[in-house]
């Protein structure tokens, strides 16, 4: 039995979690009490995070679709096929989708590969979640605890519980909490001093009531949001924070949504991702599942490659599927919502022939005669 520290892959808070390994298998999670973000406390998702490692649909071998059926292939065959296809399209007809669920190193590799091929259609999917404005200063998770007035858009208790904990800690110290959301949730109502149900965040943010603005201005205050997803909504929240001299902390979607953005892969929301898919003939997807939002657009793509850990709804539609290592099976880093970069640890080997995302991309580039300038995690890290 062995216990190994790593970072939770479930959301962007970046909690530490320990994995328990027995006979080379991850059998559970254990509290990582030394971790400054969550002190060993973890939500249900985090506790169950290890279960994905043994998901029944884990991919173990490259697959090529022949006559509508997937047939197992060697890495050589699969990469050869993809390489030839990529060469046969104009760069403007090719799209790459990266992922906030993959490491910084994986996202860097895909970005480099896109650059080498002259591909401009690249982005990672943030679905319905706040866009990260890298030019804006943001608060730290610790700042929440010291606030006197907290304005929350969305449910941080149920969705990002370890942020919720900080709100409660502030409340215990006397802070006032106002929660605003489109959906009424018991847990949010019970744990805030006031709950405001709105139909439209823009409308609310355009006319914030005077009393609230006064509190934001006069007190040590912070605005937190995971429910503001449209650009206009986020902009208005940032403006409100600037106007009232409040701190602000957007809670991003995935464990590395912020990292992927900082690496230089554009963050695309739902509509933008669909537009990207619609605008290309050949699409390469790493670790994302856009079929959940629009499978029609994907069906119109001529040649689709999906590199993922499981046979997802999107992978089902692909011409070639490549098996990748999940977070517990590779080294690398995640950057959390407060822009803190943390190392994850390889705890077990990937199943079958699955490989780390960055390595698959490097191998594919090599097959095409392209040198991406790295052959290890360390070499990638030197570049960003």
């Amino acid at each position, binding site marked *: 039995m062995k216990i190994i520290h790593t970072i939770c892959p479930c959301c962007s808070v970046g909690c530490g979690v320990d994995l328990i390994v*027995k006979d080379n298998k991850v059998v559970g999670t254990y509290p990582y*009490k030394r971790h400054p973000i969550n*002190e*060993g*406390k973890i939500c249900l998702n985090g506790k169950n995070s290890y279960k994905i490692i043994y998901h029944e649909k884990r991919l173990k071998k490259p697959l090529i679709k022949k006559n509508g059926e997937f047939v197992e292939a060697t890495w050589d065959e699969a990469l050869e096929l993809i390489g030839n296809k990529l060469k046969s399209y104009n760069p403007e007809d090719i799209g790459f989708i990266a992922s906030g669920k993959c490491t910084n190193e994986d996202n860097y590799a895909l970005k480099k590969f896109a650059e080498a091929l002259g591909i401009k259609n690249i982005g990672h999917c943030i679905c319905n979640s706040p866009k990260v404005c890298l030019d804006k200063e943001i608060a730290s998770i610790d700042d929440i605890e010291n606030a006197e007035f907290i304005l929350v858009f969305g449910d941080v208790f149920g969705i990002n519980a370890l942020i919720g*904990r900080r709100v*409660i800690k502030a409340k215990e110290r006397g802070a006032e909490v106002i929660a605003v959301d489109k959906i009424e949730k018991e*847990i949010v109502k019970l744990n805030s001093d006031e709950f405001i149900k709105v139909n439209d965040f823009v409308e609310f943010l355009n006319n914030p009531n005077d009393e609230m603005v006064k509190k934001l201005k006069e007190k040590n205050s912070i605005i937190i949001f995971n429910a503001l997803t449209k650009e206009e909504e986020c902009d208005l929240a940032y403006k409100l924070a600037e106007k009232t001299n409040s701190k602000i902390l957007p809670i991003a979607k995935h464990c590395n949504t912020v990292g992927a953005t900082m690496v230089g892969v554009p963050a695309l929301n739902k509509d933008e991702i669909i537009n990207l898919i619609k605008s290309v003939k050949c699409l390469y997807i790493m670790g994302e599942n856009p079929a959940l939002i629009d499978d029609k657009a994907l069906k119109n793509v001529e040649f689709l490659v999906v590199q993922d850990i499981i046979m997802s709804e999107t992978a089902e539609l692909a011409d070639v599927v490549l098996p990748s290592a999940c977070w517990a099976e590779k080294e690398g880093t995640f950057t959390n919502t407060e822009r803190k970069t943390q190392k994850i640890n390889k705890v077990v080997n990937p199943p079958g022939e699955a490989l780390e995302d960055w390595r698959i991309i490097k191998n594919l580039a090599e097959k095409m005669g392209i040198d991406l300038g790295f052959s290890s995690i360390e070499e990638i890290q030197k570049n960003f």
Partner: protein
Amino acid sequence: MDKYLLVQATDEEILKNAECGGAVTALFKYLLDKKLVDGVLALKKGEDIYDGIPTFITDSNELIKTAGSLHCAPTNFGKLIKNYLADKRIAVSVKPCDAMAIRELAKLKQVNLDNIYMIGLNCGGTISPITAMKMIELFYEVDPKDVVKEEIDKGKFIIELKNGEHKAIKIDELEEKGYGRRKNCQRCELKIPRNADLACGNWGAEEGWTFVEICSEKGRELIENAEREGYIKIKEPSKKNIEIREKIEKIMIKLAKSFQKKHLEEEYPSIEKWYEYWNRCIKCYGCRDACPICFCKECRLEADYIDENGKIPPDPIMFQGIRLSHISQSCINCGQCEDACPMDIPLSYIFHRMQLKLRNIYGYIPGVDNKMPPLFDFE
């Protein structure tokens, strides 16, 4: 052989790296070398002194990683043994609460004591790692990362810095300001783990020696054999040594009783406050999973009528109520539930208080008494 001994490791490297006389590590080495156990479960230092990671060691050359004490690592080994090591013969370093958990689990047939050597460590309490770091920054005014060693002695929490400098502050003072030991540790009355096979520590020990109390026949044999095989040296403690140790224990127990009164009576949360706490519950099952004595294979808390499609917060009478009715008779006040709670619900207050109430009625001390918990005591 008397039940009180001073013990010293014969291995120079152990003596250099371990606490006091290195008795614990030397005994582990003996057990592993002679193949009397499959492995040793202990804490090793991870990133720094605030990072204690449970580790299962099967090669005695690696034991040195576990030498020395870590007061900022509030783990409990009970559940790890039950879940992952129940099929092995092991030796384990136990704080009193670890030994209590293991004993309760043994009564419920979850672990087999015949397979376990419990080497006890006297314990004045543990400090949560992040609390310790904040406390050191705030009160000692040093970078917590510069601390290379910490110890608790004569009521003070003492740190040693990279440059060799020592700084000490009274634990009372730190605790008055909300820092210091975990709340449940403050209330804990079992400071010397006589519920283990041996109880080891520095209380009453001479420089370079570990004070050991023999607490079971198994413990006595272990000491005798380890001495015969040349792993340890033994000498008799003076009467004064024994008295010092007794005095420390008495003071600590008295202090614990006063904390029980403070936390569980004087400052005990009102019913309104409890509702506020329960309203935070996100039903993560963290308290259940961290509880070292919770063991049902099919948990009632996951039944449909309690889960209610994941509705949060759950009805406290059902959710926390079921846990309380299952666990409180055996609650060992280890604080793992409270540590695990992402919403900072002070769970061990209510569980410890309930156990003490049951103790008044049935006289049952979990983890210490050999009889079954009251509700399972059919005699």
